């Protein structure tokens, strides 16, 4: 119950604030521009339908992880800087309840983004065969990846007490993780690239999208990557629980 009370505040703060509305507007603008390019640009319009859905799914996860990094960084350090953290931790709620409430608020924000992205995915991929799989795997793999980045940002936010330090660290890691999306198969073909793929949850999600959307592979082929993204989520959760037990509040 208290978890829901915290989550209510977190999501209301996000969705009612100018910052939240600006984020959703920017996200819609990004997806609109992407969709428009896919149908109007001569070269992009020649892309295979499945390839387009794959690219858009990766973009949605990247944007979701960035949002999680921002919200997670603000979760403890932002509250501390605004002077609202101490009144919160003086109430009879346990550290894990507060953490779970904040994570739930983040999950709601991701849910809103996911809902917003679905019509765009439908718009660019309705004529293909794998739209349903794309939506399903976006939820299944995207959610732990996004939530993992959120937990990591919360861990850093609670430990450092600084929004800037937490945000910079998490976004740097996010950019490193997302590099396979940018550098393409060149790096991924090398031994280093293969090791990175094996331990990088973001790459795990992208490779799954590639596998199921473009190559139409079955769920059984994705189990290893599913373990990877949930292991990532588990590690980040542990780090967040450890930091949130003794947050930097003074």
């Amino acid at each position, binding site marked *: *119950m*208290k978890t829901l009370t915290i989550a209510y505040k977190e999501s209301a703060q996000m969705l009612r*604030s100018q910052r939240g509305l600006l984020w959703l507007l920017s996200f819609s603008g990004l997806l609109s521009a992407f969709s428009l390019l896919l149908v109007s640009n001569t070269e992009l319009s020649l892309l295979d339908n499945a390839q387009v859905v794959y690219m858009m799914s990766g973009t949605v996860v990247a944007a979701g992880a960035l949002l999680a990094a921002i919200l997670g960084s603000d979760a403890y350090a932002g509250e501390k800087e605004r*002077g*609202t953290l*101490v009144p919160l931790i*003086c109430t009879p709620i346990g550290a894990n309840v507060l953490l779970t409430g904040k994570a739930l608020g983040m999950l709601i924000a991701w849910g809103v983004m996911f809902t917003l992205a679905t019509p765009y995915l439908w718009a660019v991929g309705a004529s293909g065969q794998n739209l349903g799989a794309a939506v399903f795997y976006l939820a299944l793999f995207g959610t732990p990846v996004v939530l993992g980045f959120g937990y990591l940002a919360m861990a850093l936010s609670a430990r450092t007490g600084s929004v800037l330090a937490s945000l910079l660290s998490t976004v740097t890691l996010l950019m490193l993780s997302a590099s396979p999306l940018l550098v393409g198969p060149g790096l991924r073909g090398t031994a280093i690239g293969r090791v990175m793929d094996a331990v990088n949850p973001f790459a795990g999600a992208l490779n799954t999208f590639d596998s199921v959307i473009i190559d139409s592979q079955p769920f059984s082929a994705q189990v290893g990557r599913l373990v990877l993204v949930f292991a990532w989520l588990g590690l980040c959760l542990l780090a967040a629980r450890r930091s949130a037990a*003794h947050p930097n509040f003074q």
Partner: protein
Amino acid sequence: MISIENLQLAIAGKEILKGIDLHLRLGDTYGLLGPNGAGKSTTIFAMLGLRSYKNGQVSVLGHDPMKQAVEIRRSIGVMPENAGFYDWMTAPAYLQWYGRLYSITQTERDLDTLLDKVGLGSENQRTIGTYSRGMKQRLAVARALISYPRLLILDEPTNGLDPKGRREIHDLLLEFAAEGITGTLLCTHLLDDVDRLCNRIGIIDQGHTRLEGRLGDLLAGQGTDQHYRLRLEGKPNTANLPAGFSLLAHEGDWWHATVQFKNSKEPSALWGELWQRGWRIQEIRSETSSLEELYLRITAPAASYSQEVTK
């Protein structure tokens, strides 16, 4: 209600609390005094289980903060120093939300009554972001009271307020204390707050409790010096002064004196005695309160001792 013995606490390897003793009993309004950085807020956080301590015995409402922090916080209303609010909420919405963290559901009428009591009844449709500092302090008092606490902990509740605002917060606290809150810990460096509200004090400095006891006993028992400024007509005879009376300096007609009152001696008796000795006193001004004298003496660099007057 609170019993702390020899609390020692370090943060990042630095010793912050080196020996804190604090005893707050049922019905007490306890003033925890000390200069900035003395360890007052850290002591409060240790009591709430928000800071781990390495040594000492701490019991708050019969609970151990290291093991039963949630139980302690359930029964305590806290007004932290410089605590903020969610500026986008209205005061009733905020209090309702905050009450839910204590598993308390407030009706609209309950909230209106509480806001009326703290003088914010007519402002309840505005978002908190539009409130003045004084209004936010009042709302912070309401927040501390939302859970009907047995013990109220207030950290610098009148900091930054003008004299009128301070007096209003004092009146509120006195009113709520009379309504049945069974103990109040007031943490401040403003002696006027303590003078008006507290029956018991503790003075901490550099992480040590320097003095603790009933305010009246401490002032009487310590034979506290008081400073006065006397305007005299003509030059007085300074050769033979009454016991406990000593002159510090003089500027024109004004003479600075320090007076050490014995247990039963009244100031008026001393002035009468001086008059009889030929001192033509035109005007008397008290320069410091006796509590201020006590506080300055205890927190002076040389005061490295610990005293326990009345436990």
